[in-house]
């Protein structure tokens, strides 16, 4: 029965979710149509100025795509994005012009041989002329920009996101100042002269707009591709998990600092590349071209198109660029005409072109208040469940079918807590706690509210620091490890107040749980070699299998956003997410809270099955019937101290426990406990 449930009801979402190119078909078509239309544009519309404006718009689209990785995917606000644009621009600008002319020494011979420099005769002695090829400059500028991204991101990414905003803003201010003041390197405020135009197989781009348009278009297409590939990978899921809930992400094995830095670096690399393109096209660069308004403008593009939406930000960028260069003037003329028609003096004086920055401000506020997902949202709402799916008879799943979970037979305790103390200011949340969980056992932790149960979980999983003591997982010390490392060692948890990634699907949530078990890196995600494909396919299969534990409660909803699920289903997703990480110890914080009695029994049954498969379980639970039916051992906490420990039956009769739970009048309460 159970296995049948997983196969039949999972059939529909499976087909869709396993298609590795996760872009829905309709969007792919739109994308292809857009690229074809753009590619034909210079041919059909042979106007140099419009082609040039198009190339500029496309350059801004690449910038928006880069910022989207930082702001849209990873949820980090970068207000100095133009700085990386500047770094990329000056990289090519300086290395392909006459700005630097050091004296010629034999040191430069190998570079000359590589055609990176030329020996230029001068009256006062030969000098070096830098002649870096545009095509080499693209990756070089990307790397240099990424390097600075890491350099400046690293100190702040440990802090909350807000500080990053202000530090990036500062960085955005500093870079143009340095460009202005360091005039021997950058020619300062006067601007660079003599930047070489790109060459390709002997063809000089010169000043025609067309070749630049096609380079810009190729860059947009490339970056759209890269964005999609990253988004639909282990890396992209981790970014979005960070965006949705940092703490849950790190508890599910995501190394926050590393992935944030990666997002920051990749975003910076996009901007660096675009900078090189931009300066090659203009053949000049001044510090004024990279000020704060540019950073805000790119942010407006991302916000308008839709944060996190790859196609959205491209549309946002192109829309705003065209708005500036074409529509606003027409609209103003039209408004004036209307003003003359109705005799309104005010309308005749309105100048939309002048008010463009005001319009930007209004776009930012209005989008944030009324349409945060942008014009083209990143995730469309999946189709509602069919009537049959919604009203289908509840089929309970089973963990029995879960393949690849083998119990560990060892005498080393799964979890061994010794003398752990946690203090918040003057408050002692845990005082020298000892706890042993045997491998393959189920231990319940009970106690009144505020007794330190969740703190015990937090300290075990690295979310809270302990003052002393030791926590060993299968004999290995884990106290002091950051959360993602604790998960990697094999302790996964759920949270009392459910911490899912609300805007991700059930499937993606569960896939994030596997983060620590997958290997794919950014490059692998982009190239998607057979190994990556295989890994991703296996990850999805495993995720569906784990989701299948809960029968048809979750499986038909695998592609729904978790924010649309019922409370009980969210609990199930959180448990599935934890199980997906293939833990050796599973820590469940009030798993049945908010469930009705039937659901509670069902879940208790499923937990028991997991235990039968060999998984060690630590459980915080208030419902004592659940505790009694599952736990082999019960630990009672009160005011941060261990009050009692023993078999459920023993604990239930313990005077001290009754007192703690029910006050002095213990006799009356014993009935309730039974």
């Amino acid at each position, binding site marked *: 029965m159970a296995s049948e449930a997983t196969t039949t009801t999972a059939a529909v979402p499976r087909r869709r979710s396993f298609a590795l190119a996760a872009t829905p078909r309709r969007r792919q078509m739109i994308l292809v149509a857009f690229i074809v239309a753009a590619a034909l544009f210079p041919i059909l519309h042979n106007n140099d100025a419009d082609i040039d404006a198009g190339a500029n718009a496309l350059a801004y689209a690449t910038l928006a795509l880069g910022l989207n990785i930082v*702001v849209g995917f990873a*949820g*980090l*606000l970068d*207000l100095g994005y133009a700085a990386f644009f500047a770094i990329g621009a000056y990289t090519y600008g300086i290395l392909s012009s006459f700005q630097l002319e050091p004296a010629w020494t034999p040191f430069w011979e190998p570079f000359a041989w590589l055609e990176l420099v030329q020996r230029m005769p001068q009256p006062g002695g030969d000098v070096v002329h830098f002649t870096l090829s545009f095509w080499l400059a693209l990756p070089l500028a990307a790397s240099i920009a990424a390097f600075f991204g890491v350099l*400046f991101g690293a*100190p*702040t990414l*440990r*802090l*909350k*996101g*807000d*500080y990053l*905003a*202000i*530090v990036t*803003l*500062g*960085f955005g*201010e*500093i870079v143009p*100042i*340095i460009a*202005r*003041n360091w005039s021997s390197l950058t020619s300062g405020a006067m601007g660079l002269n003599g930047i070489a135009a790109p060459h390709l197989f002997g063809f000089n781009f010169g000043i025609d707009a067309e070749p630049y348009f096609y380079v810009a278009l190729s860059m947009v297409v490339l970056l759209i591709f890269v964005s999609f590939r990253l988004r639909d990978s282990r890396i992209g899921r981790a970014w979005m998990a960070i*965006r*949705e*809930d940092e*703490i849950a992400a790190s508890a599910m094995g995501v190394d926050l600092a590393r992935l944030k830095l990666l997002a920051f670096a990749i975003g910076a690399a996009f901007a660096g590349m675009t900078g090189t393109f931009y300066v090659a096209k203009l053949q000049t660069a001044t510090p004024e071209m990279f000020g*704060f308004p540019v950073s*805000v403008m790119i*942010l407006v593009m991302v*916000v308008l198109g839709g944060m996190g939406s790859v196609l959205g930000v491209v549309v946002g960028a192109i829309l705003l660029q065209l708005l500036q260069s074409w529509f606003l003037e027409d609209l103003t003329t039209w408004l004036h005409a209307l003003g003359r028609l109705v005799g309104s003096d005010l309308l005749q004086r309105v100048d939309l072109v*002048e*008010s463009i*920055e*005001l319009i*930007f*401000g*209004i*776009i*930012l*506020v209005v989008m*944030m*208040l009324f349409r*945060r997902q942008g014009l083209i949202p990143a995730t469309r709402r999946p189709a509602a469940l069919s009537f049959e799916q919604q009203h289908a008879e509840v089929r309970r799943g089973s963990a029995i079918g879960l393949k690849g979970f083998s119990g560990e037979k060892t005498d080393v305790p799964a979890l061994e807590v010794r003398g752990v103390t946690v203090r*918040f200011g003057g408050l002692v949340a845990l005082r020298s706690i000892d706890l042993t969980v045997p491998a393959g056992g189920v231990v319940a932790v009970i106690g009144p509210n505020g007794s330190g149960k969740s703190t015990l979980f*937090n300290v075990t999983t690295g*979310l*809270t620091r302990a003052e002393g003591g030791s926590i060993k997982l299968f004999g290995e010390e884990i106290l002091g490890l950051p959360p993602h490392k604790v998960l990697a060692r094999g302790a996964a948890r759920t949270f009392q107040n459910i911490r899912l990634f609300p805007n991700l699907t059930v499937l993606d949530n569960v896939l994030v749980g596997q983060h620590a078990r997958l290997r794919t890196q950014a490059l692998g995600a982009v190239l998607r070699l057979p190994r990556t494909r295989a890994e991703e396919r296996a990850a999805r299969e495993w995720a569906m299998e784990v989701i299948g534990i809960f029968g048809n409660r979750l499986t038909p909803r695998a592609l729904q956003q978790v924010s649309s699920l019922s409370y009980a289903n969210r609990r199930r997703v959180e448990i599935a997410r934890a199980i997906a990480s293939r833990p050796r110890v599973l820590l469940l914080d009030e798993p049945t809270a908010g469930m009705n009695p039937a659901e509670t029994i069902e879940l208790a049954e499923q937990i028991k099955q997991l235990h039968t498969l060999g998984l060690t379980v630590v459980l915080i639970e208030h419902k004592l019937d659940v505790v009694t039916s599952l736990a082999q051992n019960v630990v009672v906490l009160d005011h941060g101290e261990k009050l009692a420990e023993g078999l459920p039956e023993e604990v239930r009769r313990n005077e001290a426990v009754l007192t703690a739970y029910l006050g002095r009048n213990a006799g009356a309460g014993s009935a309730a406990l039974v």
Partner: protein
Amino acid sequence: MSTFDLLLQQTINGLSLGAMYALLALGFTLVYGILELINFSHFNVFMVGSFVALWTLQALGISGQSVILTGLPLVGVLLAAFAVTMVFSGLLGVAIERISLRPLRNVKGPAAMITTIGVSYILFNIILLTVGADSKNFPNPLPTARFQIGGAILELREILIWVVSLVLMLGLYLFVQKSRLGKAMRATAQDPEAARMMGVEVDRVIITAFFLGSALAGAGGLIFGLYYNFTSFIIGFTAGLRAFTAAVLGGIGNVPGAMIGGVLIGLIETMGGQFIATAWTDVIIFSILVLVLVFKPTGLFGTLTPTKS
């Protein structure tokens, strides 16, 4: 000018700047302490405040550079100007909170911060489009008394800035420490959930924070005008960024920290200009910001931001 006189003079300059930064920094710190929000609209609430002050003075018949008041009329005019400017700016801050930020209060991520950037742009451009881009003369009714301290010169208006700023900041400090609402503010900053459960009206606390912060920014705008004798649509950005740095330096969320941070940034700016070059001022200030964040993220005097898990 001896080195000592020079240092004294630059200290006087730095204290005047610092007083203004401190007034602005308080607004950042109050709002951040409670909402964990970097309020970029604060930059231009300050700028709008300086224009409101300009119009108020003009409405009181003080325009041009020639009207110089003394005694009671001066006190009266200044009190009226401060009152009108601070109330208007305060209400502007409340309106910003009410209209654009309250609906986003429970929205995660950068949405609220982006909104404040939008509001900042809107304020900036409304003034630019209505008043124009050139800087406007700001009337100065203060007598131009100068005191010679060694080789350094201390002007009456500088003393005024220090006194007024100090009074306002002390007032705020006492309010936060002693009043019921102030205590509610601190409670909310510590733990909004617990505060709510203890019967604190969080909405009221937030509105108060916006009102006070913005009113102080408005006062800063008026002081700015009196000190520099001009105002312009552009004054918010640089001053705002430096004030924010001051708030971080002092420990964001920490009221006395913001005051000391403001003064420190003022002094750093003048000493940096003296001994390095004003061309590098922003680089120096932002380097300090980054260094503080790296080595002492809680600022010099610790933060009062909530510790949520």
